[in-house]
């Protein structure tokens, strides 16, 4: 089990080797890659910015939770930071498991948790020269925030009300 924020290109072969074991019958992988279009705007690349110590803590926590929930020690999560060109992998998740359904379920659970809990932000660079911080769900900040709050474990949840805001 290993998680990391990385500054250089994700080495998929190394990650696959890490979760490969004769105990496993299945290996599931997911990679997020930089797409040339988002919300109908033409994208040049994305700058990934993380609150590094907290992002690392959350990623490690997600890997541990996935291991407990789906029953495997063979979990690797890597997330890149810095500027990524089109087609480059921003995140890689690998899960080895004796059973294929569990491997795939764990992978999907991890990617959803990661998108909801890990403090990483992306600044999209558009081909017209503009840049914008991506807001998932395209809702207002307050909607996005509430949605995130709803999935963070009760013991670990923020809800700092600003009554006069």
């Amino acid at each position, binding site marked *: 089990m290993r998680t990391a924020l990385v500054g250089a290109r994700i080495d998929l072969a190394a990650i696959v080797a890490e979760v490969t074991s004769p105990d496993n019958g299945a290996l599931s992988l997911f990679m997020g890659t930089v797409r040339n279009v988002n919300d109908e705007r033409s994208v040049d690349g994305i700058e990934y910015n993380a609150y590094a110590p*907290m992002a690392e803590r959350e990623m490690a926590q997600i890997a541990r939770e996935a291991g407990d929930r789906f029953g495997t020690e063979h979990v690797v999560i890597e997330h890149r930071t810095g500027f990524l060109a089109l087609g480059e992998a921003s995140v890689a998740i690998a899960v080895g498991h004796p059973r294929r359904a569990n491997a795939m379920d764990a992978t999907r659970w991890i990617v959803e948790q990661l998108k909801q809990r890990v403090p990483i932000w992306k600044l999209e660079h558009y081909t017209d020269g503009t840049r914008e*911080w991506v807001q998932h769900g395209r809702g207002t900040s307050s909607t996005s925030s509430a949605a995130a709050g709803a999935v963070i474990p009760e013991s670990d*949840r923020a809800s700092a009300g600003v009554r006069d805001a």
Partner: protein
Amino acid sequence: MITLDVLLFASYADAAGARSVRVSVPDGARVSDVVRAVHTAAPSIALPARPLVAVNHRYALADTAVAASDEVALIPPVAGG
């Protein structure tokens, strides 16, 4: 009073024009007090009604107590992956 440099990221940091904002809150202050103080000190940040806040790298509750030694951060809606 305790003084804190509250960490800012992404759109919050851009709006404030800084990576952190210094606020003073009374001894015994809670996360909600810190958020109010940031709102006053840096009104240009478009904070949602209930912004996510981390204390020492963990998501914190509104009534979590804050000490001078804590690392406090305002967490904009995350967008990793």
